């Protein structure tokens, strides 16, 4: 079954996704990969900040908050 691909930013809170690709470049890309966001990493959208952005994501056992700019450069298969 073909799974829907969305940017991490569009991943609904409480849902998980599997990283398909990053469209960020340079340092941002590097930093995200260093944090463990490589292909097939399962990411769960935990919650939005009370001010609307950033969003907290859980992956590889840690919780990291990403701003919409970073999150929209990460594409995931919705699980």
């Amino acid at each position, binding site marked *: 079954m073909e799974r829907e691909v969305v940017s991490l930013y569009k991943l609904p809170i409480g849902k998980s996704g599997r990283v398909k690709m990053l469209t960020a*470049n340079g*340092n*941002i*890309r*590097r*930093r*995200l*990969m*260093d*944090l*463990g966001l*490589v*292909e097939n*990493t399962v990411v769960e959208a*935990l*919650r*939005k*900040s*009370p*001010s*609307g*952005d*950033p969003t*907290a994501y859980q992956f*590889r*056992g*840690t*919780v*990291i*908050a*990403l*701003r919409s*700019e*970073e999150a929209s450069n990460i594409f995931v298969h919705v699980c």
Partner: protein
Amino acid sequence: MGLTAQSTWLGALKNEIAFEKFGTDSIIVALVGNPNTGKSTVFNSLTGLKQHTGNWPGKTVTCAEGFYEHKGEEISLVDLPGTYSLLPNSVEEEVARDFICFAKPQCCVVVTDATCLERNLNLVLQVLEITDRAVVCVNLIDEAKRKKIHIDLKKLSHILGVPVVGTNAREQEGLDRLKDEINNISLGKIKASPLKVKYDETIERAIKVIEESLYPLLKGELDSRWAALRLIEEDKRIIDMVNNADNLLSKELLKAALKEAKGILETRYACTDEIRDAIATAIVLKAEEISRATVRFENTHYNELDRKIDDILTSKLFGIPIMLALLGFVFWLTISGANYLSEILAESFFYVEDFLTDLFLYFGVPEWIYGAVVLGVYRTVAWVVSVMLPPMAIFFPLFTLLEDLGYLPRVAFNLDNFFKKAHTHGKQALTMCMGFGCNAAGVVSCRIIDSPRERLIATITNNFVPCNGRFPTLIALSTLFIAGSFGAFQTVIATIAVMVAIVFAVLITLMVSKILSQTILKGLPSTFTLELPPYRKPQFGRILVRSLLDRTIFVLARAALVAAPAGLIIWLMTNTYIDNISILGWCAKFFEPFGRIMGLDGYILLAFFLGLPANEIVIPIIIMSYTASNSLMELETLASLRQLLLANGWTWVTAVCTMIFSLNHFPCGTTLLTIYKETQSIKWTVASFLIPTVTGILLCIVFRLLVSLLGI
């Protein structure tokens, strides 16, 4: 970095990163690790209080060095900045990497967090690529136990090929074994054979080709496999190093090898970015594999409690109100507790002053020396200390407590959107909170912001939030002139007025930050990744020591340093007369027209300038000038202060303008000194002086004009 002029490149690099105070005889051990792994707890537990901090030459990254002795060996432990990776994305990462590569510590201790080992293994694997001399410390092993996370340390050690020690540094558990292993590795008693991450076949072939000609060039000074990898991903720094190498023959060979390697890589990868991805991915996947083999989660919902706490503390409905309430509570405790302590301190200082007076009289010291030393220098320093020490001694431990609990990143999380709109970093919220205690400490805390541009904005604008030294001014003036006629509700109204001032200060900070982002510090927000670490049980004893030593004493020492000469100058100004008017009087006359435009008067404006050493002394200087008494004093009651100010032509407009200027004017001397130390730049220090001052002048003028236009 200016390497080109150096003939021996490795020597040059070593000099560049050499930390000034390294002991020569002791064994040098480096401590690396992700942020939030309890790395500094490990550092403190190992070294106790035998440590000192310093800046890396030319960089605003601090590094602490500590000492301990174990089984006859003298160990010098260097605490490197917390990093997620050794691929240099930031100054901290560069410093950490350079130290491991070029300072050649005899042993490298990687501190990891047992509750999220997988992410931490990423760094471990990168360290093992550079050095064979490593020990892995799995810290917070008790937290992991509590969360029912089981880690097979033996197996982990077997896979990694280096000693692995489980510790709970807060309770001193496992530290002896850690010290044993550090000795073993440093003295070469154990020959570790660390795991090297294997990359895909194409990259491995390229590595092999480069390594062969790189090896003689490096003369064993650097791991050739690691250096080859960096050349493959076109790391600028390593390329520079090779270009500056002095062995020409190998260099030619290397050039040929690089070309060959490039050909190999091109068969699979279209660009360097793809190669970098492949390398980063291989490391992450290896970490995942090792974690799977060694970590077992008995309870898959181990972080349920943290989530539940976050549900409340960062919820849409309660997140911001809870945060305001918490900060409000901290301020309230600070203000009310500090009043009490200040009084006691002031009394004891005056007691000492009486003693000094007697002493000077006894020895028949000339009056002018007595005046300059006791009434000038001593009294100003005593004033600054008795007003600054208590709020800091209360505020900083409370703040460190919130930090220790893990609450502060949540504040940044809650507020980040406002900062994003100002094109700055969410962590600026934390540096601002710190600024409420003391702007100098706030400026130091800006180090937590990775991106230099955003760090600079946070540094320059930190002074817009009022520190403890300015709260008394705000509170006194709002009580006297705004709440004065409200009788019973006076305190409530005064509190509200101060809260309005704080909100106003935050808005100004955001506005100025935005203006800076669009003008002299142009740029888009850098990557924002903010870890929300698990909540932790704070350690009260350590908090007290750490906040008192690191923050309070640090700030206080600098304040006293600035206050002493200033006290002398102020005393001389009030006691030297020209045509029967003191120099202070003449200066006030000069400032009068400028003061008038801003809704102030010459004395008030002058007091702000003379108050450069510490904002606390602004109101005392105003009082002193009006009463023409010759040294700093405080009036007995607020009512008599009001009478004095009214008699000197104050209205509520004067009070509001003074409050506005108090919120928006140049930072105090201590803060300016700190800004200079942090930025290493006179230009940015001057900017930090001018930007708030100009803002304050404009706001005062606009306010005064508005009032007269509206005819209030």
